[in-house]
């Protein structure tokens, strides 16, 4: 039922990032009836370091000729767009190198192509990024998010859904619904980050209902969404409910076409897997009983059970580096003086690294970290 409702409206675009275990996450992005303005394709200027870098820092302009090259994201953008989105190792790398460089790869280009050419008359499209461990799904997602941020979309990014279903310190019974559980800490962190990312939209979107928090506080109908978020942050107990409200409002209002919404969930398998949280009597909690998960599921698609249930669903496989990409990555590390071993810059060193990491980006990164 909810599927039909969602799809009736303006089409949304879903993205998900998915590890090889079953389960899926997806992005929902709703778009206005206005089509996206295509930026003109200028001929990019090649930087002398032709293999590993490009100076083109706008994701919209990335094309196939940039495949394998790194482009850098300015640091202020980074703080605004990705307060919580990047994987921790990448954050460390950014801090070390002083710059954030993402590699432009084929799956990302494909995804961006779809994003650019979305037909809004059709129902929302879900994209599932899947692949083995360490192949670069999260960073591809970040690439797409950067693109959308540049194009002034609203971004709903859940950095890692796994964080919501395990290792939770506090579990409160939900104020809204007695059977569910709240996670105030995670919810409040997420609200803060959401606010950082989407500052400019918060005043524009108005809530359409009145929400009563407790005896003394309530949010009137028509007040900006920012207030709900403030409420959630200040009153940590209501944070989860605030999240739920945000999701609901966005879902509803995206059909109205005021903004483009991109929903990105990393590790979406967690929404349908098992939790490691236990009640006081040591019985396991199912994911549905967590309010955050429940709302998120509603946001994406409730009765999604597997890949068969289809619908605009586009799987995008992310695989290991091909030789060109490997070379580019290797050059990038060399340029940043990351590889200090004396044999590292040689051909043999490169072959060794190739063998040992089997062209897996994550493994390569871990290997180079020791050199």
């Amino acid at each position, binding site marked *: 039922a909810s599927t039909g409702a969602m799809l009736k409206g303006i089409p949304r675009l879903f993205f998900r990032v998915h590890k090889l275990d079953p389960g899926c996450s997806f992005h929902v992005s709703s778009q206005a009836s206005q089509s996206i303005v295509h930026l003109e394709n200028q001929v990019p200027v090649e930087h002398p370091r032709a293999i590993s870098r490009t100076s083109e820092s706008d994701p919209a302009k990335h094309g196939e000729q940039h495949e394998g090259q790194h482009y850098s994201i300015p640091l202020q953008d980074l703080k605004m767009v990705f307060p919580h989105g990047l994987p921790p190792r990448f954050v460390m790398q950014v801090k070390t190198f002083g710059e954030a460089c993402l590699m432009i790869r084929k799956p990302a280009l494909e995804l961006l192509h779809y994003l650019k050419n979305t037909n809004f008359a059709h129902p929302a499209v879900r994209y599932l990024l899947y692949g*083995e461990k360490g192949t670069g799904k999260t960073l591809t997602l970040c690439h797409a998010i950067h693109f959308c941020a540049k194009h002034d979309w609203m971004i709903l990014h859940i950095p890692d859904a796994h964080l919501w279903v395990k290792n939770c310190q506090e579990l409160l019974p939900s104020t809204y619904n007695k059977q569910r559980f709240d996670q105030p800490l995670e919810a409040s962190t997420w609200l803060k980050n959401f606010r950082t990312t989407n500052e400019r939209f918060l005043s524009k979107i108005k809530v359409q209902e009145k929400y009563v928090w407790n005896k003394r506080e309530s949010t009137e109908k028509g007040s900006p969404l920012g207030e709900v978020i403030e409420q959630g942050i200040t009153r940590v107990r209501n944070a989860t409910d605030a999240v739920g409200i945000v999701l609901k409002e966005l879902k509803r209002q995206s059909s109205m076409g005021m903004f483009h919404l991109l929903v990105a969930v990393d590790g979406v398998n967690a929404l349908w897997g098992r939790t490691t949280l236990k009640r006081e009597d040591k019985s396991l909690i199912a994911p549905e009983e967590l309010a955050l998960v429940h709302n998120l599921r509603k946001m994406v698609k409730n009765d999604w059970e597997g890949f068969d249930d289809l619908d605009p669903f586009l799987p995008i496989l992310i695989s290991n580096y091909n030789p060109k990409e490997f070379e580019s990555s290797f050059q990038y590390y060399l340029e940043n003086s990351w590889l200090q071993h004396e044999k590292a810059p040689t051909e*043999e060193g490169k*072959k*060794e690294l*190739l*063998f*040992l*990491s*089997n062209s*897996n980006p994550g*493994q390569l990164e871990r*290997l180079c970290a020791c050199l």
Partner: protein
Amino acid sequence: MAAPCVSCGRALSARLSLTVRASLARRPGHWKPSAVDWQMGAGSQLLKLIHTTAVTTKKNVPASRHEVYTEDFIKKQIEEFNIGKRHLANMMGEDPETFTQEDIDRAIAYLFPSGLFEKRARPIMKHPDQIFPKQRAIQWGKDGRPFHFLFYTGKPSYYSLMHEGYGKVLQLEKHKGPLPVKTQHRDLIGSRWLIKEELEEMLVENLSDQDYMQFIRLLEKLSTLQCGPAEEEFVQRFRRGVAIQSKKQLIEPVQYDERGMAFSTSEGRRKSATAKAVVYEHGSGEISVNGMGYLHYFPVLQDREQLMFPFHFLDRLGKHDVTCTVCGGGRSAQAGAIRLAVAKALCSFITEDEVEWMRQAGLLTSDPRVRERKKPGQEGARRKFTWKKR
């Protein structure tokens, strides 16, 4: 003390009884007077198997105290051995005339299978010369006068050798003038001098280290001088050949599969893991283990480095494809087993020199270390229980 000696059929009991009699006839510390015969030896003949003091100072032979083997006894043993050999050949259905010692060994191992680990404790049947230790003949005649002119040195055979050698040196120097450089060295390569134990065994005498060193020095001096065939032969008596290790390396044949691709298979073991590897000659460096990629199967870097070692050593990192199956052991043992299998399989695609380098690098040697057994009274193989003072 005779090592367990097997003879067949009716000779068995007779031989056993003889051995018993021989040991009963022992008298410690005596040189038994000539109940048997004297042998008038020629000057250089020293070893007559008549009886008396046994000379065994070898480490591994248990202290045989003054065993008395009369010559008759030894002769009879030899006859019995030969008869037994013919009987054995008949039993095994082979030709008695051409029945060699290896055939005897195989036959005995077949007829008397033994589960003992110590090879020397298993049943053997060898020529009595190899079983009974060599004994010195009686060294003086009926009138008490010794046969050998150097008898009173205490080590007559050794000193007579030195005498002979030095005589040859003097002769050569007299003929040629001192120390011309020897032109041929070929016989010295691939062989080594006798070690002290071997020399002692040859001379049936106890030697000291200094004696041995002197002797070797003499031989080396002799070999540096140019000499005729007699001297060469004299020197060669004291050289033993050294086998070249690498020739023993077994190289797998290259096989071709149905698509015409060249490949070779081999196996490897480590601890309790066994691996079979199929290495294709032309490939792109993919390795598949038990159907999975090697990155997936060996998440630990150390194991992947082990896999990389043979290729990296030969500088052929991206050039071969490998498919392997492995079972048993733990992760490190499996990695080691695959490494050995891959190295052996690669031998068929490389030159002999590279095979030798691999052997020296230790890539082709199977690691003999296995888990040591836990002993009773200790907590582990080596760890003892906590020592308490009271």
